[in-house]
């Protein structure tokens, strides 16, 4: 089975049913199920998420992208400091970066105040962190490959029947 294709299909649409995946990949449903649980066990598939445009859901949500600089530690490098940061449930995504800051930390909260408190009281105080720079998200245009607020663009404007 072409594992990479299965993965990209699920990445685009985790709700595809097993029988549909079986048809698409020309495999039996059992094979697909087996492969998926194998990939889940190996954590190649680490979760199934939904892309939500919270702006439209009338839910107050603020996100920020925080550049975090730090001093790496002997023996651990960056990983121990990182683990002290991503342990907070406020942290949605975190990367180790090349460039001007060591980490990029994406944080979500209800209000700007809440995020500011988190940065000041928690993030900046983690041992080894030497500085933070917080960038608030004003508008989300595209997420996980999907253009949000794309109603006009995504309409099929082809004629119904063409040669």
């Amino acid at each position, binding site marked *: 089975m072409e594992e990479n*294709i299965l993965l990209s299909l699920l990445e685009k649409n985790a709700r595809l049913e097993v029988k*549909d995946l079986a*048809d698409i990949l*020309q495999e039996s449903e059992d094979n697909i199920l087996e492969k998926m649980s194998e990939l889940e066990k190996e954590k190649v598939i680490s979760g199934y998420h939904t892309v939500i445009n919270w702006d439209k859901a009338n839910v107050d949500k603020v996100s920020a992208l925080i550049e975090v600089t730090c001093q790496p530690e002997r023996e651990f490098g960056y990983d121990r400091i990182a683990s002290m940061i991503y342990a907070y449930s406020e942290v949605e995504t975190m990367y180790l970066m090349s460039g001007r800051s060591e980490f990029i930390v994406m944080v979500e909260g209800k209000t700007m105040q809440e995020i500011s408190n988190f940065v000041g009281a928690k993030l900046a105080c983690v041992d080894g962190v030497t500085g933070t720079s917080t960038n608030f998200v004003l508008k989300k245009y595209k997420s996980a490959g999907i253009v949000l607020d794309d109603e006009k663009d995504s309409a099929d404007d*082809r*004629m119904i*029947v*063409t*040669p």
Partner: protein
Amino acid sequence: MYEELLNKQVVDLKPSGIRKFFDLANTKKGVISLGVGEPDFATPWNICEAAIYSIKSKKTHYTANKGLPELRKEVSLYLKKQYDLDYSAEKNMIITVGGSEAIDLSLRAVLEKGDEVILLQPCYVAYEPAVLLAGGIPKFIELKSENEFKLTKEQLQAAITDKTKAIVLNFPSNPTGGVMTHEDYEPLIPIIKDHNLIVISDEIYAELCYDGKHCSPANFDEIKDLVILISGFSKAFAMTGWRLGYLCANETFIAHINKIHQYVIMSAPTAAQYGAIEGLRNGQKYVDEMVEQYKLRRNYIVSGFNRIGLKTHMPNGAFYIFPDIRKTGLTSVEFCERLLEEQNVACVPGSAFGNAGEGFIRVSYAYSIEEIKIAIEKIALFMEQFK
């Protein structure tokens, strides 16, 4: 009374069966269509951007009749790389207004009044009228589903008369999705050569081959100079609306065909040509991604149709399946009209592509898996009554 003022050939042309069906489908709301003969993908953005930039840079004039030299050079490199075909950018190529113009140019350049042209049915709807308008006489070979809609040596031999001038090929095929491999072509080559048949080969779906690489009749050196190869950007690069194609042939053919092109068209749209250059230089990965998607959708739709009792063979090219509906006892027009009426799903009757398409329907899979899924569920409901 005004009709009498017009050319009789034109007045007598039948409107295409697709057009009739389009008019019908257009009267209904919320139709789920599997009837479209063009990609659902938008043109890759780098192509659009290059075209926009060309306009901003005031590149808004005519180009050379044969097309921008840079574009011809890219097409030449592309054909060599993808299909091992040698066509010189200077001598063997014209950039046209879609494959459609190239079909018309070829037939007009080749045919004298009364010349016969072999067409393979079921076939794309424009070939027959284009032959008629060029003064030719269409002669049909009916391709068989049991042969996977391939052309056989026996069929070709039987269709040739002393008036036969040319044959129009279209593989991968609209509407059947059928392809011809190197092995399939081999037995035909001596016949074509013996009769000096001009082969007008519409290869607009060449990139959309799913099992094995596309083979062109021009890959056979013995007949390469008899072949007029037609292709373009519409399908592989999702550029239908840009109207850009190309025609490749021997130097003599090109010199004469170019006269028609320069008098009636002048040159293909300039912005589209700049877009296409970018597509050929930096667009292959987008083409590959789209081809991959079509292949997965093909697998999905073929399984789905067979499961609901409509026998469908796995086609190797284009983005159509051609299911057999004969077990319903309906003609293909009746089938499509009732499917539209009862379930609001639009497919195209096979008979729109000639008599040989009767008993089949053309179903496009240039749609997302989600859309195809809904359509199959509705067609399954429709099929209940025939159990």
